[in-house]
């Protein structure tokens, strides 16, 4: 099968379109999360997505309908993590761990009680972008546009809280409100990314492009642009490679992402040897 032939299939076009949009979101958000040192929030929220998907499947709500159950639950969980950090005498990682444990244990209990839908639940664990429906592509596209518009409106405030909370507050930025926006947007992206790479690998879509961009970027905007380029490039290359050599798309996307990171890591040491430690 050659490249043109691959690209002529409708299911691959849908996968590439939705995958690129979701990767764009995750990689841009990932820069802010990594710099605020809360990048594992993606992992925690992915575990909550697992629990919420188990609830959706127990209610016989599949595919697009399962998003209607997952989204409000994951959005609430993201705010819960923030509140636990602010009010619960907990550090961010402990709060993420708590919410994550709740999500995954609720998912396991529901899966065990429900019995008959375990196989469906497993498909959410590892993602299946090639089976994405037109309806899901449209929902992903609409949400992506919404998230990107919000991010561009709040860009400078997100930049300010990523740099330093205290300085942001004294510049009149409502840091708590902007943090809430950041985690809510992350929650939406995590639910969307579940279809792309599955619950197990969602955090890699948030962390790896940002980690690579931080190796090479000479400026904040450049960092975001590099992360976005890597995120989107990995999805396109990963999906095509997975078809050509018959591998699971989700894991191939993540491996391509990691390869980009390794390249950036080595390149930094060659270009900026003085600043590499």
């Amino acid at each position, binding site marked *: 099968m050659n490249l043109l032939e691959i690209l002529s299939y409708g299911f691959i076009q849908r996968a590439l379109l939705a995958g690129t949009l979701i990767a764009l979101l995750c990689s841009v958000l990932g820069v802010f999360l990594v710099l605020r040192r809360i990048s594992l929030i993606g992992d925690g929220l992915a575990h909550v997505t697992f629990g919420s998907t188990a609830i959706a499947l127990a209610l016989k709500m599949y595919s697009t309908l399962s998003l209607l159950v997952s989204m409000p639950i994951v959005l609430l969980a993201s705010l819960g993590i923030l509140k636990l950090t602010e009010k619960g005498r907990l550090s961010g990682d402990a709060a993420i761990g708590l919410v994550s444990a709740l999500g995954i244990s609720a998912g396991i209990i529901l899966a065990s009680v429900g019995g008959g839908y375990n196989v469906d639940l497993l498909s959410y664990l590892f993602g299946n972008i090639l089976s994405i429906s037109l309806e899901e592509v449209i929902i992903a596209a609409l949400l992506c546009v919404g998230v990107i518009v919000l991010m561009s409106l709040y860009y400078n405030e997100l*930049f*300010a809280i990523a740099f330093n909370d205290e300085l942001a507050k004294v*510049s009149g930025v409502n840091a708590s409100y902007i943090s809430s926006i950041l985690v809510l947007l992350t929650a939406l992206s995590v639910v969307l990314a579940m279809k792309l790479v599955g619950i197990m690998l969602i955090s890699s879509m948030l962390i790896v492009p940002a980690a690579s961009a931080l190796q090479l970027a000479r400026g904040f905007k450049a960092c975001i642009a590099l992360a976005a380029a890597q995120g989107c490039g990995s999805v396109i290359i990963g999906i095509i490679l997975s078809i050509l050599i018959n591998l699971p798309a989700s894991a191939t996307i993540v491996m391509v992402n990691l390869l980009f990171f390794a390249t950036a890591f080595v390149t930094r040491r060659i270009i900026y040897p003085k600043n590499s430690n």
Partner: protein
Amino acid sequence: MPGEIVVRTEQLACCYREGRVLECVSFEVERGDYVGIVGPNGSGKSSLVKSLLGLVEICHGTASLFGSRLKDFSDWHKVGYLPQSLNLLNPVFPATVRETVGLGLLSLKRFPKRMNRSDNDKIDETLYELGISDLKTKLVGELSGGQLQRVLLARAIVNDPELLVLDEPTAALDQETRERFYSMIADINRTRGVTIMLVTHDSGAIGKYASKMLYLDKKVLFYGSFEEFCHSPEMSSLFGEHSQHLMCHRH
């Protein structure tokens, strides 16, 4: 206008989860003052300025900025803040000096807080004024302690604040860089008329520049002009006459 009260606290106490760190702190800062806030380690100096900026909870008493109670205060463009830089910096943060200084202009912006060409001119002008134009494309993580301090100062004054609060800005600097920094702040106070509140553990050096001294140890032990500080019997008994003389000897 001279004589205008820029900062006022009344019976202020601020609290962390572990308990209170300040008790009954009352003082006023007038427009154009250069107040050196000194005191031993753990005396609550940083907590005091942070509580004035709304960064630490005030659990008793009141604080006001420019005549507004702190909880109602929204004119943050009138305030510049320079924290201790080493605690602040994430060494891998990818922002350039220009981008970092630009963050200081956010207090002047309404939603959506976008930058424009005149903002870029303002940033360049401030970098030039502080003699760091050559650093503008460098990443903040690549700067030395002294360079970083000047960049954060540029960030704090780029919005032309009327009050500049500095929290141990020279803690990580060598003696020569520290003196240069204090002198730069004195210039800003004199030429721009900016009111300064500077926290330091270095009572001797700040004495050369500050118009008022506030000596804090959980509560205010002394607040007055530098001359009064030098002749205060309370300060003599605290420091010893010889140390007080050394502190007060302006070069």
